[in-house]
């Protein structure tokens, strides 16, 4: 019941803050990775190069699907913004359901931008069903398809090092985030601008996906403070021998 109550509280907060954010958009602190992403999108459209978006292999039937859904929300905005480009972005996934959703998201992004004829089914790809086959299928795209920037966002593990290495070899930008701690450590070493921890979930807000994404960040902040207070209070009570 406590969990359901917390969930209800989060839902009410999200709704209330979304309505508030529609009236007064949030001022977000600058995150270098997202600034680089916005520059890379503009550069890709102008120079006629491709954007490669890798959504990882997050199974939507598990908790790992959260990061995949963030990637899809960002993909929708990027598809709209790159619809004017001669070379549409390529999206790769390591999960079949995610690959189908990426095609759907690309299609709807182009339709929203009034460029439905730009959509090609082959731009949303399943590149492998195991971690390493997914990495092995993704790496050649960075070499073969004139990619100028790689956006790797989703559930990836240690295999992300191979994707990061392929990106580095082609001298293309790499904006990378994962919900996996091993992949975060790899991206810290391998990406120009890594995203750490929950910064992954700020993607929607930073690419202009709407008030609900900005409100989500605020709800996360509120809950983070509540958790900090709960941990400190619990430690104090334990120290005093009251629990």
């Amino acid at each position, binding site marked *: 019941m406590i969990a359901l109550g917390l969930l209800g509280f989060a839902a009410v907060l*999200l709704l209330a803050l979304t309505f508030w954010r529609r009236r007064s958009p949030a001022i977000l602190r600058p995150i270098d990775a997202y600034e680089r992403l916005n520059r890379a999108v503009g550069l890709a459209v102008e120079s006629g190069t491709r954007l490669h978006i890798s959504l990882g292999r997050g199974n939507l039937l598990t908790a790992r699907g*959260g990061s995949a859904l963030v990637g*899809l929300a960002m993909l929708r905005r990027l598809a709209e913004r790159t619809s004017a480009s001669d070379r549409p972005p390529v999206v790769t996934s390591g999960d079949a359901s995610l690959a189908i959703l990426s095609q*759907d998201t690309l299609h709807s992004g182009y339709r929203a931008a009034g460029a439905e004829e730009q959509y090609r089914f082959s731009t949303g790809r399943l590149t492998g069903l195991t971690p390493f086959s997914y990495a092995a299928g993704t790496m050649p795209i960075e070499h*073969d398809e004139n990619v100028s920037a790689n956006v790797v966002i989703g559930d990836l593990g240690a295999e992300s*090092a191979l994707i990061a290495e392929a990106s580095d070899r082609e001298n293309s930008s790499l904006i990378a985030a994962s919900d996996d701690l091993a992949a975060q450590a790899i991206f810290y070493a391998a990406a120009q601008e890594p995203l750490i921890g929950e910064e992954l*979930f700020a993607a929607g807000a930073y690419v202009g996906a709407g008030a*609900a994404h900005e409100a*989500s960040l605020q709800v996360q902040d509120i809950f983070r403070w509540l958790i900090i207070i709960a941990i400190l209070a619990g430690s104090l009570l334990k120290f005093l021998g009251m629990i």
Partner: protein
Amino acid sequence: MRIVPIISAIAAISAGIIVLLGYFVSIEPLPDLRILLTDWAILIAGMAVLVGIFNLVAVQMEKIRTRQKGAAYGVLLVLSLIITFGFGLLLGPDHPFMRVAVDAVIVPVEAALMAILAVTLIYASIRLFRRRMDVMSVLFLIAAVIFMLAMMPTPFGPIPGDRFILFIEGAVARGGARGLLIGIALGTLLTGLRVLFGVDRPYGDN
């Protein structure tokens, strides 16, 4: 007005709410409905794998047809897929030939990629300073080396102070990791709520 996006949004949101309530509320028929909907989702995910493989083949066939870079690898992939799929259907997955295909091809290839990964990680660590020369990068690399030395077996036995290093790893590093995981859990929770409210609809041409 397009009807498909509306129907798909109603189906997704109602299924999501029923499954969520089925977890927390044990009033019939919610738990049974949760199990039923989860089973349907697993079935659909199984079918999605076939659709995904079809997509993989279609992309490779297009590569071959338009003679793009790497088309030869596409031919190899499609042929291997057809042969293993055909033999798998005829002989079954437990047949010795199929075991050989897995043990002699797939396992060694993945092991080779794992070995490349180890080299890649060392190379990435070396290049870290070329990319970002700041205090955090120095700390990151020093911490990684010290923790590895403390954890791995060395020819000279345990390094001096290994217990203290492992204590730090347990108290500080795991604490930090838990902090990151709490942040990720909160982000996942809010992402789920946005999908339940229909704000994010990555389905049905929305």
